């Protein structure tokens, strides 16, 4: 399938170039985000009836993992409210271009942090506390507030949106999986960018801000670090930026060689499997261990969690690579072949989330009418009883996701292997075994 340039449509192009539609969505999102923080802090402590739990971890999560990431990549980042106050503060404006003199420290992020290891760590930190986070509104409220303040704080110290690029626990995996999405932002003609003076898409101009994600669109070849904020469309004086519809997983044709990204793939893969076991599995002791933060059982859970992600999963993967007897460095093969785990991980998350979301979706209807648990009945749905939804499609849907993910992963493995000229069989066998484990955990 050839690429289709969506921005050829005047309607889409104007909608993306104008700040107002995005601002309107931003304001709605920001209001919702602040409301979620307050709901978590002052609303009912009963998670299943609290806006912060129901709308963040069920509604938002469903939209993010089942729709936004697979189909729009970093589409969520384009409307995410978390960096907004920090960005506005940093620029001293909401709509207008920033002043010539920076308002805050505007430091460059140290080189050692210019990778996604901080995002890996922040995701793992949340993951280790996820049983409490996902069920306790005030913890969710605190974490949401902490992310907002972290984004504001980093905006006053570092240039651009350091939080989104280097720290956001959600942004890390969205970036990884956005490579599979059929939407991309790319330049139309590289020569135009080469000859462009001042590079306003990166440095900003009177038309808009320089790329908040610290990306020069002229060199953009993957979705991973493009936040789809559309600023470059607004600032490009040559109309050289396009938003394209493309085949799924186009970015994966050229595998990454970065270890931080490879480990992100393992973190996501392992987390999906562990969550499937803890949150959906029948093992009470495992659930208790995950929930009782600070106890010896929880520390054991942490050790197992980290051992699976940093030891068992990459360990067996490396053994498979060693079987290929490649002349390339193991590190290079490891990172390249880990690309094949990206569609597998995404589909693991889709399969897991289907179960989680369909089981709990009825809470959304009840919480809509009484988001704070004060006894309201705004839309007459407060007393909606908990009822798992669409249970008949759950097993077929999960099977489709897992089998589809395996095929997708195998195809990606073949492409990645041919790039570095080694066998794809160990990676495919590895993916097959993990898929069987996931089947066992879910079905």
């Amino acid at each position, binding site marked *: 399938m050839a690429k289709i340039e969506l921005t050829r449509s005047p309607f889409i192009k104007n909608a993306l170039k104008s700040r107002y539609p995005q601002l309107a969505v931003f304001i709605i999102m920001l209001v919702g985000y602040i409301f979620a923080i307050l709901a978590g802090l002052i609303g009912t402590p*009963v998670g299943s009836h609290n806006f912060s739990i129901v709308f963040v971890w069920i509604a938002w999560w469903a939209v993010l993992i089942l729709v936004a990431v697979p189909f729009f990549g970093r589409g969520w980042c384009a409307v995410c409210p978390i960096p907004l106050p920090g960005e506005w503060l940093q620029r001293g404006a909401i709509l207008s271009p920033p002043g010539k003199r920076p308002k805050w420290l505007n430091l460059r992020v140290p080189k050692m942090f210019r990778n996604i290891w901080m995002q890996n760590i922040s995701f793992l930190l949340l993951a280790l506390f996820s049983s409490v986070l996902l069920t306790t509104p005030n913890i969710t409220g605190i974490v949401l507030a902490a992310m907002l303040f972290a984004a504001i704080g980093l905006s006053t110290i570092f240039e651009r949106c350091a939080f989104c690029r280097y720290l956001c626990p959600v942004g890390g995996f969205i970036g990884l999986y956005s490579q599979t999405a059929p939407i991309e932002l790319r330049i139309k003609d590289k020569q135009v960018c080469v000859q462009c003076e001042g590079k306003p898409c990166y440095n900003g101009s009177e038309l808009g801000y320089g790329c908040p994600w610290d990306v020069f669109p002229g060199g953009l070849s993957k979705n991973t670090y493009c936040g789809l904020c559309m600023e470059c469309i607004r600032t490009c004086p040559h109309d050289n930026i396009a938003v394209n519809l493309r085949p799924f997983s186009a970015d994966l044709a050229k595998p990454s060689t970065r270890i931080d990204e490879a480990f992100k793939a393992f973190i996501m893969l392992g987390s999906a499997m562990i969550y499937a076991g803890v949150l959906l599995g029948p093992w009470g002791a495992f659930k208790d261990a995950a929930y009782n933060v600070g106890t010896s059982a929880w520390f054991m859970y942490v050790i197992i969690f980290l051992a699976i992600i940093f030891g068992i999963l990459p360990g067996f993967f490396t053994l498979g690579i060693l079987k290929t007897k490649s002349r390339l460095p193991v590190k290079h093969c490891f990172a390249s072949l880990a690309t094949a785990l990206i569609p597998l991980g995404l589909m693991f998350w889709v399969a897991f989330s289907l179960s989680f979301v369909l089981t709990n979706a009825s809470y959304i209807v009840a919480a809509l009418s009484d988001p*704070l648990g004060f006894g309201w009945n705004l839309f007459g749905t407060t007393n909606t009883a908990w009822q798992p939804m669409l249970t008949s499609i759950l097993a077929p849907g999960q099977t489709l996701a897992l089998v589809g993910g395996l095929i997708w992963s195998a195809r990606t493995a073949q492409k990645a292997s041919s790039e570095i000229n080694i066998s794809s069989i160990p990676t495919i066998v590895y993916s097959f075994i993990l898929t069987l484990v996931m089947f066992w955990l879910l079905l």
Partner: protein
Amino acid sequence: MKRSELLSRIIVTVAIVGAIGAPLYFWSRTPLIHARMAENGGWSPDVIQAEVGQPLHLRFTSDDVVHGFAVGQMDMPSVDVLPGKVADISLTFDEPGIYTFYCTRWCGLNHWRMRGTIEVAGASTSPKPVSPPLYVSLNLDIDAPHDALFIPDGKPSAVNGQSLAMSSSISLSQEDYFTQSPYQVFDELKGTSLTDEQRWDAVAYLWQSNTTPESLANGKQLYAQNCAACHGENGAGDGVFANDLNEAGEASMQTMTGAHDMVMQTPVDFTDPTRMLGASPALLQGKILRGGMGTGMPMWGVIFTEEQIWDLIAYIYSFQFEYTK
């Protein structure tokens, strides 16, 4: 500053202030009584003010598990308080005083401690004379042992005892029933020609004749709702919380055996004949009214009416006697 920028700033400011202010406003204006397990704070608030004759509107929500709300010594159905849901109730008090409200669901280990008070102010419309409970009038030391010195081999049968009592013209006035233990009555029958087993059967009948099926049924219901969690469905002191209370250690179930000597105590076994046949209804009334004084047994005097306590006592004796074939 451009108009568009200014307008955007105004809209964003209003939106943020609204997003913060609206929930805080409604939060500050939504009086809710929160129910949490006793370990996590119980009722909040646990003291409520009311006026005689003025309807008191209360709204409840549970922050953890299912709780129930009822006011002691009031004829009202219990209100279930479900997690995340809000329940409403209106109460009107005819007399001033301090009323105890309590949880009616087995919500947790210290469920029994989940109580609060409603302070009702105003003038009394029909002051009632207050008389001391029977165990106080009798000057009973309810903490002293009152064991039966001789116990039957099996459960005495009221059915067998009925014919024996009829033929021997044995009866027991209600006053004697309240004030004497089964063992005392058994002992008083030693001058008769009855064997030990027959005397116990006669005592069983005398106890049955001082109660009614309705009283037993009411007592059974009260026992199931309020006592069985610790004392067990069959009275054997093996309720679902018994082991947990034991494991919870000194903080949960203690009894005083000296000024400084605290000893763990499990819930009383109502099937133990030595203890129960030596206890008079008045003694049991004192235990129920006052509670265990340092044990996990709470005081029920603020919750049960006098009639309910007698019903409960009548039912507790059924763990010792066979009332039907």
